[in-house]
């Protein structure tokens, strides 16, 4: 097998224990709830009979290992258990909500990359006004919390100027234009801090590459600066940028929990929060599992992509 193939296989295998441990943690969540989880879940509806029924439904009366194996086996078949409030399968709830979260985070990351990378490149290539501007943006991006920015954007765009809806959602396939109108403020709120982070990373990576001898050599050869910056330097600065994009995807998924709640978007994050409030632990488990798995998948893809962009990493892993 080629070193590249070996690297990818190795990386895939490394993800397996992470997924197993995470599933154990999520499985144990319901058992770690102080007191009796079924009693807590049912609250005032908890007659001894109800408690016994739900406990049996959830299989909580069986040995722990057997419970885990049944549960994990179900997951492999896409069975996340049943919501005890709506009695719908949790997998159905997740399938309805996952597209919203994915659309929100993907659009935010795309926006952040589309703004952050070019600004970062320019700030490094042509110091001056752009560099000052980028410095200000980075500071603002650090200081301003995403959900507070969201509140302020609602105040301006929905409250004062009334050009965008304050909250709500229309599915993408039903009406793409309305869908984007509803997502505009959430996406900008979530993307703002990310843009600053990607800008800073790009600027740093470009600063480093532009200072290397081979760039001076290209300049001495008389190659146009534009070509040097975008064709040669940016390609070599790409690996750290891609790495950061992958890692920061986790930050976006976390941020989506708050942003979805703020803008009443029916995504997995909001599902988790409302389910916590309802003590609907089975749904919380499913939501946490799906978001975590999504992030593990993204980091996996990032690592493979970085290995492809920077062959030195593969050699290091193969050695």
């Amino acid at each position, binding site marked *: 097998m080629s070193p590249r193939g070996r690297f990818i296989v190795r990386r895939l295998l490394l993800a397996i224990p992470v997924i197993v441990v*995470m599933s154990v943690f999520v499985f144990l969540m319901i058992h770690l709830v102080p007191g009796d989880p079924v009693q807590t879940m049912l609250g005032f509806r908890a007659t001894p009979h109800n408690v016994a029924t739900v406990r049996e439904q959830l299989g909580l009366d069986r040995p722990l290992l057997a419970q885990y194996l049944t549960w994990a086996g179900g997951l492999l078949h896409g069975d996340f258990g049943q919501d005890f409030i709506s009695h719908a399968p949790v997998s159905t709830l997740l399938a309805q909500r996952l597209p919203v979260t994915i659309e929100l985070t993907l659009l935010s990351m795309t926006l952040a990359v589309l703004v952050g990378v070019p600004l970062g490149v320019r700030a490094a290539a042509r110091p001056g006004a752009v560099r000052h501007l980028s410095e200000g943006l980075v*500071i603002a991006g650090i200081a*301003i919390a995403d959900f507070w920015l969201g*509140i302020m954007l609602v*105040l301006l765009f929905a*409250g004062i100027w009334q050009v965008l809806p304050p909250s709500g959602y229309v599915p993408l396939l039903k009406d793409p234009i309305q869908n984007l109108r509803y997502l505009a403020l959430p996406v900008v709120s979530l993307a703002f801090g990310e843009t600053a982070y990607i800008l800073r990373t790009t600027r*740093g990576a470009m600063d480093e590459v532009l200072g290397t001898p081979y760039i001076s050599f290209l300049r001495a050869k008389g190659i146009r600066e534009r070509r040097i910056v975008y064709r040669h330097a940016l390609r070599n600065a790409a690996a750290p940028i891609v790495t950061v994009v992958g890692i920061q995807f986790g930050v976006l998924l*976390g941020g989506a929990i708050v942003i979805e709640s703020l803008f009443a978007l029916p995504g997995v994050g909001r599902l988790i*929060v409302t389910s916590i409030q309802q003590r609907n632990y089975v749904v919380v488990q499913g939501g946490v599992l799906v978001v975590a798995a999504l*992030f593990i998948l993204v980091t996996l893809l990032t690592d493979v992509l970085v290995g492809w962009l920077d062959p030195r990493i593969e050699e290091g892993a193969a050695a």
Partner: protein
Amino acid sequence: MSVAIPNVPARTSRRRGILTSRKGRVGFAILLALIAIAAFAPLIAPHDPNAIDAARILAPPDLAHPFGSDALGRDVLSRVIYAYRVSLGVAVGSTLLAFLFGVPLGLYAGYHGGWVDTLIMRPIDMVLALPALLLAVALIAIIGPGSDVALLAIAVIYLPILARVVRSSTLVVASQTYVEAARARGTPSRRIITRHVLPNAIGPAIVQATILMGFALQIEAALSFLGLGAQPPTSSLGVMLADGRDFLTQAPWIEIFPGVAIAITVLAFNFFGDGLRTRLDPRGVAR
């Protein structure tokens, strides 16, 4: 990759002050002021934060109430000051807790290497493989909401970050000649760790913890905003933001000032942390 750590002359340089940059000093000054506000809240707050005034419901800012009033006519400035006290407490407490456990773990993993390293770092890497805020929310789902639970949750997501930072600086310090010399002399490893490695390896962790402390305020606010942090009657900045949402267009001051307080704090910790870097994390300065 081995990078030489310049032997920092401990005593002589301290006299010139630990903060060499203006940014660092500005951050430190703002932090002192903010800590004073939190500590002396009862003396500084102009009004009783819980005093309801039917005549001042959603009243805009004026001289006596510079931040305006909320839906119950309570003074927003006084409420921000008291809520800030709770939020800052959670931020500082959670970071200190993470520091207290994360630093020894990173130190032992980095110094001993081998299976000790694997045993400590594998679980830590597992935690880092999850979105941080998701982990915090999951922990709160288990234990139940509250500001003390939020404190614990933030500590859990910070611990791996600090342990990683300490581990990598420990790896560098442990390969230095003076550590080797101590080992050759037969100094017990516990003594080497506390006397030689710890003082030289802890700098970057202090810088990192300072910066994280600011961000903890954002996380606390987010958790409380979701109803997963501080619970009534305790108010934190996130609780204020959640309470004021329904009156956003009528009384934006309820939403603006808590956010500004968070932003200023995050920046102050950031500037201060960056300022400390020159002395405590010389390798990281270029970043």
